């Protein structure tokens, strides 16, 4: 490697002054840009108080929302307020009415129940609770431990004896009373959250197990408190002494232990009841069963074929609302299609008038061009808001909004394309004595048509996307439905479904538009 002498260096510097003596801004362009950007970032950070917003964000809920996209939760409530265990499900539970999932097992046994009411309740028949919930019938061993356990607890904290004595004294006052009785009911319920996690529930004691680690919570029903035995593991939280305990089992779910109930959220991968909701006769059937019922089963509804019932059930699925979603999606497609088509139809003749080489009238040119600018610059949003007021919510507003905005855009683009055409062809057509209309038709249109069509297709495609967004302000289409589903914060799986549909539509229309473009435009533009 040869080294340069000072003379040589100076010589090179003299020969290339533009490389070595650049103006200040050119020389430090990148550092200056970086400093400006850093300053702007700091400013924006302060302006939006990004730091505090991010730290105040509901981050733990974000995970649940994301999980909701691809999974669903079943939320049984295991109640033991009275001492007898009762398992209830919220209305519209994905498991339908009277569910009996295999991951909840119950054991029957003798339970001590505190009953609020008049003293005559002593004569109640012994087996009332737990109707409809199947469970393994009591085995002697569990029976013994359960009654023993609860008896121990009772004597330890003595709520039962206390309650009965208080009950009798209250009874003397003439009001309602709390008395205890021993009867047969569900003594223990076990909820399996995953293969390694479960919640074992008796009225006085909750055992939470996660991957071999077990925590025991004792329930003080009288003072309405929950006490953990020993320290809580990292996956269980209790905010204050005696308050509810929340145990997290990761993706599989969580359990909220209160003094009167355990709220279990168990998460399952997948979209629940995607085809049929729980009211449908097809609900819960496998595909071959559905097919068998649809084609060869006995008529469910005497007026219609089973296939018609099946279709009706799918379209009117209460949870997924397929029919409505599809109609809204079609509205979005229609909005983009009609809006773009109308805009092209109107902008095409207007652009001939706006192009100064075609219509040599400065006044008309300028008026039209400013008109196009106006349509374009008043945003699609503003048009959408106005037309929603005019037509009411629906695709007509969306069509009009796209139509107005894109008339401006197309007018501008088309008139610019027209002003850049090659004049020779026009001259040629004119020189053979063609009428003015024929000059445009044969001298101008063949040159610009490929550009026009290509741009129209391009905007058609892009409007399919933007129609989604303006829909959210009420201009029709799937946007509003999407927005509503998001605002409830509980229908994220519906959001995922609609997003997938939108992505499919956008993908399909991209390809249609590309195929049309290459058919209609490429051969002409290759030349």
């Amino acid at each position, binding site marked *: 490697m040869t080294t340069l002498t000072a003379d040589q260096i100076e010589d090179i510097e003299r020969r290339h002054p533009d490389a070595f003596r650049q103006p200040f801004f050119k020389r430090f362009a990148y550092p200056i840009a970086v400093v400006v950007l850093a300053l702007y970032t700091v400013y924006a950070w302060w302006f939006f108080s990004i730091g505090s917003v991010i730290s105040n964000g509901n981050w733990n809920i974000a995970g649940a*929302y994301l999980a909701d996209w691809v999974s669903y939760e079943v939320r049984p409530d295991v109640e033991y307020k009275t001492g007898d265990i009762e398992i209830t499900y919220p209305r519209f539970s994905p498991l339908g009415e009277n569910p009996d999932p295999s991951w909840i097992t119950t054991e029957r046994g003798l339970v001590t129940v505190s009953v609020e009411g008049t003293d005559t309740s002593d004569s109640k028949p012994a087996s009332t609770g737990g109707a409809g919930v199947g469970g393994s019938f009591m085995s002697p061993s569990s029976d013994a431990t359960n009654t023993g356990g609860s008896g121990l607890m009772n004597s330890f904290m003595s709520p039962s004896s206390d309650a009965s004595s208080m009950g009798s004294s209250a009874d003397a006052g003439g009001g309602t009373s709390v008395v205890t009785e021993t009867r047969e009911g569900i003594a223990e319920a076990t909820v399996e959250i995953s293969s390694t996690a479960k919640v074992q529930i008796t009225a006085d004691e909750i055992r939470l197990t996660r991957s071999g680690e077990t925590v025991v919570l004792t329930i003080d029903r009288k003072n309405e408190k929950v006490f953990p035995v020993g320290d809580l593991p990292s996956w269980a939280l209790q905010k204050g002494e005696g308050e509810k305990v929340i145990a997290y089992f990761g993706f599989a779910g969580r359990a909220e232990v209160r003094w009167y109930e355990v709220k279990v959220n168990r998460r399952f991968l997948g979209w629940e009841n995607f085809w049929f909701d729980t009211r449908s006769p097809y609900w819960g059937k496998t595909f071959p069963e559905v097919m068998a019922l649809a084609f060869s089963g006995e008529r469910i509804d005497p007026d219609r074929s089973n296939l018609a019932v099946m279709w009706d059930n799918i379209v009117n699925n209460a949870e997924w609302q397929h029919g409505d979603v599809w109609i809204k999606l079609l509205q979005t497609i229609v909005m983009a299609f009609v809006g773009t088509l109308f805009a092209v139809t109107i902008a095409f003749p207007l652009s001939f008038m706006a192009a100064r080489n075609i219509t040599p009238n400065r006044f008309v040119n300028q008026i039209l061009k400013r008109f196009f600018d106006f349509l374009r610059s008043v945003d699609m949003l503003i048009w959408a808001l106005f037309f929603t007021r005019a037509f009411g919510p629906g695709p007509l507003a969306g069509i009009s909004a796209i139509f107005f905005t894109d008339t401006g855009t197309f007018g501008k683009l088309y008139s610019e394309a027209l002003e850049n055409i090659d004049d020779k062809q026009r001259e040629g057509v004119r020189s053979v004595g063609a009428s003015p209309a024929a000059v445009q038709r044969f001298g101008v249109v063949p040159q610009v048509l490929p550009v026009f069509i290509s741009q129209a297709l391009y905007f058609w495609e892009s409007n399919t996307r933007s129609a989604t967004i303006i829909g959210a302000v009420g201009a029709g289409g799937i946007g509003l439905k999407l927005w509503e589903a998001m605002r409830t914060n509980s229908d994220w799986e519906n959001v995922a479904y609609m997003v997938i549909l939108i*992505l499919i539509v956008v993908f399909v229309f991209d390809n249609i538009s590309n195929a049309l473009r290459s058919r209609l435009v490429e051969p002409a533009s290759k030349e």
Partner: protein
Amino acid sequence: MAVTDASAHGAYVSGDGRYDVERHWRDLNATRRLYTIGGLVALAIALVASLWFANETNAGKFFDRLPHFFDFVGDLIPRDGWEVWRALFDLPSPYDTGSLQYNYPVGRVYITENLYVPEYFYKMLETLNIAVFATLIGFTFGFIFSFIAAKNLTGSRWLRFVVRRLMEILRAFPEIVIAGFFLAIFSLGPIPAMIAVAIHTIGALGKMFFEVVENADMKPDEGLRAVGGNWFERVWFGIVPQVMPNFISYFLLRLEINVRASTILGAVGAGGIGEALRLSISRGHEAKTLAIILLLFVTIICVDQLSAWLRKKLVGKQAFEFGR
């Protein structure tokens, strides 16, 4: 397009070996006309069906509502000409009765004791800041991704594939869903809109950037490779200087789009001028609406003009090639 395949013309060669050009041309023309008419008829049918469908599923029917088409113009006529300026600059109105419609001074954002920024200017600034900051984030990540996604700079097919698909997903995912999701996390405010716009911009700019990079002249890169430059040096000194004008041009183009996008996202709950506009239109506050539209209109034109001017300076005529 010249067809030179002689066999295709077989049908037009008559018995004495003469090729009937005229008849062939007429047939081709007829086929072409058939296709054109067929296409137009299909288009017309699709259009009529679409219109019928749109009308059927709309809340108000087209012909019933047509007389109300220009109702919004009536909604926009202020009590007097000065009302618009009062609304725009938050000056007290003589019609003020304490209702929301004329309470312009309430929205003032005070900087010092007496100096204030009018409400709508502040909101416009918010929307503009959303757009600018989001575009900057998109630019930064798009910049990084573009070199990884470019065929001429990244040898690994898998890396390219992953980055390109990632950008595609970011681009195709509806902005409104991202905004909605982050609205659920951050509650109402401009940040969700910013994140949504930024994410979309990463994908959109990344795609345009890597196409620019792939078309870059590789000779400087070769030179740097010859003197032993590593990958970063080759990119930074060989590619970046060539592509930067185009990158900035696309950045500005994207900025124009993002100003509109952040306005729209604002209208669905992300704050800024869009929300003010939606509220004002739905409440029928004519002067406020007019003031906002005026402000929005002027801002969008300014941004467009500024960006067009800058792009023209940077890359010349090709800056006007339209692209979204």
